[in-house]
């Protein structure tokens, strides 16, 4: 008996690796979730390494200095670059993965909770990325924290938990670090567990539009594809990390505002440009709620895009809005958004 067989037997993996999935679930567009999972592991490992050096104290520039230390040592810098570019890749792949799930109607009954857990995971990934950008404590990080504090103040009781007043004896950066390395990853892990459980229960991919005669293959083939594509993704990120350093601006000056967020949040920056920071929760919250409601808006069993023209039109409109706002924010000079909430 081989080692693999021994583990397979002892862990009773056959119901997982042996169950049958449609053949098309092994195409690249259906393995995106698996690649995200592999890259999530990379982020977990590099994150644990970075925590050995990072000092989450804002006073005397300790946090910034510890990040600076990372950038001055080749191996640490590479680990930090892997963490940053891995996170960027995950964000990009999450977007693509969700678009694919939407187009293929993968949220349809009985997969509503699969979609909903995916949307909540998207928000969690946003929060992880946001909190990670604050930890650098450079100009971008300090400005991001300024947005956090001003919004929580504006939201009153709804934002109290995220405000410095909630635990005023603890530096807010310490709490942000705790959220980034403990709370959010644990929450994400629970959600991923739920997501995978639902995937196992309801099966890979949508079935209603797929031909009945489609070949079925064991899940182990999908797992192998996931490892293969995941390894390729890691290779690409390693090359990028060796060539391009993760950004680090100058030590944060909270009295000025000169940076813009990363690409995935530029559309929110456009909202701030047009209506001010206070508009963000009024637009972001309904946008997330609408995403959560997608399975209940599009309720018929049809999964082919050709027969879901309204839903495809909605997707195109949302995508054009997102792209338009992103390009607008990318092309315009940085603006001040802080300090105007009363």
């Amino acid at each position, binding site marked *: 008996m081989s080692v693999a067989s021994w583990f397979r037997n002892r862990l009773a993996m056959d119901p997982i690796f042996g169950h049958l999935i449609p053949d098309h679930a092994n195409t690249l567009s259906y393995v995106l979730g698996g690649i995200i999972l592999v890259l999530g592991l990379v982020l977990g490992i590099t994150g644990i390494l970075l925590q050995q050096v990072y000092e989450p104290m804002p006073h005397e520039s300790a946090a910034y200095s510890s990040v600076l230390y990372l950038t001055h040592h080749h191996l640490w810098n590479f680990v930090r670059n892997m963490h940053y570019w891995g996170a960027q890749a995950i964000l990009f792949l999450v977007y693509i993965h969700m678009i694919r799930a939407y187009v293929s109607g993968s949220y349809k009954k009985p997969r509503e909770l699969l979609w909903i857990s995916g949307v909540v995971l998207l928000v969690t990934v946003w929060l992880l990325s946001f909190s990670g950008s604050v930890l650098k404590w450079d100009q971008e990080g300090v400005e991001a924290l300024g947005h956090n504090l001003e919004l929580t103040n504006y939201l009153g009781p709804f934002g109290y938990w995220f405000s410095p007043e909630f635990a005023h004896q603890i530096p807010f950066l310490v709490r942000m670090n705790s959220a980034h390395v403990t709370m959010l990853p644990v929450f994400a892990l629970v959600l991923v567990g739920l997501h995978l459980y639902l995937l196992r229960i309801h099966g890979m991919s949508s079935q209603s539009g797929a031909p009945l005669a489609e070949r079925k293959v064991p899940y182990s083939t999908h797992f192998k594809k996931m490892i293969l594509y995941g390894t390729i993704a890691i290779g690409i990120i390693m090359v990028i990390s060796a060539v*391009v350093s993760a950004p680090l*601006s*100058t030590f944060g000056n909270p009295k000025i505002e000169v940076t813009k967020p990363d690409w995935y949040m530029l559309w929110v920056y456009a909202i701030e440009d047009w209506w*001010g920071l206070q508009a963000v929760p009024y637009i972001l919250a*309904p946008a997330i709620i609408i995403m959560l409601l997608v399975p209940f808006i599009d309720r018929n069993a049809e999964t082919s895009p050709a027969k879901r023209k309204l839903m495809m039109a909605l997707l195109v409109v949302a995508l054009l809005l997102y792209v338009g706002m992103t390009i607008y924010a990318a092309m315009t000079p940085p603006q001040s958004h802080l*300090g105007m909430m009363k």
Partner: protein
Amino acid sequence: MKSISFLVFLVLLLLMTNLNSRTAEAHEGAGAGWLLSYHVSEDLTLQPDQSLPQWMETKAVKFPSLDGSTMTLMSVNNSTYAVFLVSRTLNSTEGSGVVIAFEGAGINGSDDVWSIIDGKQVTPLDPSVKTRSSIEHGKFTATFGRELESGNFVLKVGAPYDSFVKATSWNNGTSLDSINLDSLKHWGFELLPPIDEYPKLPIEISAVLVGTTAIFIVYETRRQSH
């Protein structure tokens, strides 16, 4: 569908009632009280012309001069050299003056004072400072330039200088010695490094998202029609 309609209505209502009244305030706020010297990658010129590309993406601070007219102050740097630009309405340089002072940056903790009186650079002046000025169509523009690491003090990129810069101008023959520089508004100052230059690729990523969506729609339509 009723719940969706209600949600859309709610969003529109919130936008109309709560946000539009604040739109005008959206570009004020953090950064008030600070003069930021934006980084420009190209060589800088002292030519007193605010329409030059080097000033295009730079934010100016505006404040009243001694005679009440509004003056504009802005700055750019390229990590080795910094240029300051002052502009205001003025018909003649006779009896006019403009001064920029740097708190505590002179000899023995005195202010480092750069000035142009009657259209001419005042001497003695920090010898590393170069100035230019011009009047065109009733607009006076003056530039002051200096290497960051020369003269009495070294300006560091990315270091915040609180309450550091003060400036004013006049058109009524006021003497520079009679001006109490400490009574002028003090601006915080920071020489910014290149910002947001790392590859964010928002347009490229947006294009890939749109392209991939189109591919998914075609792929799923074909797959599910077979």
